[in-house]
């Protein structure tokens, strides 16, 4: 019986039906179930709010105490106050690192600045409990009140000093450049460039001053070029191929910026301001954690403009120069207008150039590498060769 196309189709249909009947039909699909995630109760919500208020009350009392101490010391434009509880060696180390960072930035004297490191072990504030992570530093910078000539106060709090029971990494976290940078950062910008214009201040406040985490405007940042790493962190996750790559840690808007889409860079760094019930506090107090171990195990999110976003403001200072950056910083115009007026270029094009410098250019659209094209051509030629050989063998002589 000759196999005509219609018989081929019939045979294929029968084979598919047999596969479906014998392989799939016998297995019942698993019953669908819906797991209901727990919602936080009113007690939990109220307890969290109470704990946060207790922590802030405690912080405000520490701030008042620190400022009183600084006032009595008459230490000049920069006061560094380290609690004796830190011990001589660690206190000296923190003091040296803070002062060195300050000196590297030109030892600005624009406003009085108080940098303090305290041990804050209390767990009850005015009868209310508060949660304090044991080994995570907490940094709070009280920005000066723009309407009055006031000081900028930055406070590093830890629940306990490094001791025999603390993780081996705790001490080095306290003196890590990230911690010192977070402690000095916002106040250093104020001291070096004065109070920002209201629009710039609002922009930074909305992003919790994330763009200003780095204050090293004398050196170019190390490139965070995309790289492929054939490694997964946990041998449990063999299926995951996620490796460190700037693109992995960048939001969709940031990727569009990297790809060179017009205006997407400005949109990425200027997200629309969202109303926040906590905005009054957040506009005046910058809270960060510094270097800590918890981040190693947290889910890895995407930053708006990639993992190097903390360098944004520092790079503006370096590339524009202090004079032009100060003009941008103090301008009362909206951020894009202020940037253009100060630098003669759009914020969008500057951010794009910065992103390409940090992460390298992002290939756009489908494409093939040179080696891939070569393999493809070889495969094609091989196929043609085989076809020719078969055709020659079947030729009727």
């Amino acid at each position, binding site marked *: 019986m*000759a196999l005509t196309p219609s018989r*081929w189709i019939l*045979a294929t249909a029968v*084979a598919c039906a047999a596969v479906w009947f014998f392989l799939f039909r016998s297995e*019942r699909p*698993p*019953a*669908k*179930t*819906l*797991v209901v995630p727990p919602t936080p*109760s009113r*007690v939990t*919500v*109220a307890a969290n709010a*109470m704990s946060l*208020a*207790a922590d802030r*009350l405690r912080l*405000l009392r520490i701030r008042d105490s620190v*400022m*009183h101490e*600084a*006032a009595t010391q*008459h*230490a*000049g*434009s920069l*006061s560094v106050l380290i609690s004796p509880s830190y011990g001589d060696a660690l206190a000296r180390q923190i003091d040296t690192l803070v002062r060195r960072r300050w000196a590297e930035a030109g030892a600005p004297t624009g406003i*009085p600045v*108080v940098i303090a490191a305290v041990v804050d072990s209390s767990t009850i504030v*005015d009868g*209310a409990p508060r949660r304090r992570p044991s080994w995570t530093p907490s940094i709070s910078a*009280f920005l000066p009140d723009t309407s009055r000539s*006031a*000081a900028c106060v930055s406070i590093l709090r830890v629940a306990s000093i490094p001791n025999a029971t603390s*993780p*081996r*990494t705790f001490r080095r976290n306290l003196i*890590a*450049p990230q911690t010192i940078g977070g402690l000095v950062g916002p106040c250093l910008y104020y001291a070096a460039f004065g109070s920002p214009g209201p629009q710039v201040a609002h922009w930074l406040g909305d992003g919790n001053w994330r763009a200003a*985490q*780095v204050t090293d405007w004398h050196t170019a940042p*190390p490139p*965070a070029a995309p790289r492929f790493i054939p*490694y997964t*962190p*946990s*041998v*449990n996750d063999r299926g995951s191929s996620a490796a*460190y790559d700037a693109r992995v840690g960048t939001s969709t808007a940031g990727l569009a910026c990297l790809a060179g889409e017009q205006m997407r860079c400005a949109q990425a760094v200027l997200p629309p301001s969202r109303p926040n019930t906590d905005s*009054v*506090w957040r506009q*005046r107090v910058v809270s960060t954690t510094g270097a800590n*171990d918890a*981040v*190693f*195990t947290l889910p890895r999110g995407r930053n708006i403009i990639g*993992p190097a976003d*903390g360098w944004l403001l520092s790079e503006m200072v370096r590339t524009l120069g202090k004079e032009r950056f100060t003009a941008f910083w103090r301008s009362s115009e909206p951020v894009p207008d202020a940037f253009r007026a100060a630098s003669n270029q759009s914020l969008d094009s500057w951010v794009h150039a910065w992103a390409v410098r940090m992460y390298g250019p992002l290939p756009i659209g489908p494409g093939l590498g040179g080696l891939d094209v070569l393999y493809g051509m070889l495969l094609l030629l091989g196929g043609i060769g085989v076809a020719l050989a078969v055709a020659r063998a079947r030729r009727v002589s």
Partner: protein
Amino acid sequence: MSKANVRRVLAACAIASIASRSVRAQSTTEYAKRLDSLTATWRAAVIAETRADSERVNGLPVDTVRVGNLVVLSDTEYVELAKNTAALVSPALDRAFGSWASRMRTHVLLLRRRSGASMAEGHPPVESGVVGPGGRVLLSSTSIATADALKSMWLRIAEEFLSGDLDPEIRNWLMVTLTSEPATARTLAQGRVDLVLARSRAAHSCALGDHEACMQALGLVRVDDVPFALFDETQRRGMIEWNAFVLQRRDPAAYTRCVQGGNQATCDSLIRSIPANAVPQAVPAAVRQNLIRYALLVGGDGALDRLANTKGPIADRIAAAARMPIDSVVSRWHSNIMSSQNSSTAIDATTALSSLFWACLCGALALRSSRWR
């Protein structure tokens, strides 16, 4: 007065002035009031919650079904369904967990109509879970009202709770929940794939037959410096680059010196800044679970109880469960998985035969094709 002294006095005045007054939303007085108010709100919420707990407990179904080690609070209309499902689940738990399954008596299951949900596949949806403190339902889920649908959910709940009843030392070592699926030669052979593909030097040595490496990779003996003892240089470099998003932000200069400059001392320092709980395990949890399943299999009756109740390091507990010294357990487990007849878990004999059959059939049909004649 010198310029420096003038600046100091001005700074002191500025600091003193701000300390003496309150700033909007940053004053201690305001926050003290806010804290008082929130404390009152929290107390009111606690009272309301206690009342709600009481109402929830009163609202639980009143019919109790007991089958084997399972206790189910059920709506009257679902009593039969609860009995049928429990009759399927209880023997499976007994087979998998032995007498440890009796702990399910302390975790009361719940089965009731899901209010407000629409019909699914011709069955009314039901809510099931475990009755927790204050009448809350833990691991709550919604499914259709059939024994088959509920069985898998109840087995999963039981696995969670029976694993959760183990003490933290075992749970931290195991890192996954125990499964109720019976251990078979095929499931045990999967351990070889997991071991061979694990990305650590110790795991590779273990797969090649190094007993001490197996003990270290499985976490059965204390290892002081895990990254340096169990991983090679390339694997440690991988750890650094994987954690780049933290390490680069923490100390950009050190990261660059290591990754781009290749400075070994800096790389070693960066490795030591990764906390112990962020250093990857030398073998995946599946390998450890595989060893436990093997130990429970050879240990026979009461193996899980012995594992749970024996005091001491994890190695001693596994030895007690298997009723043989830990060295013997690991050696036998290793030879079992490495010499299993199931040479690959990816393709078994049925799949291979089926593939051959279809290939031959297609070949035979192709040879009969009119276009080739």
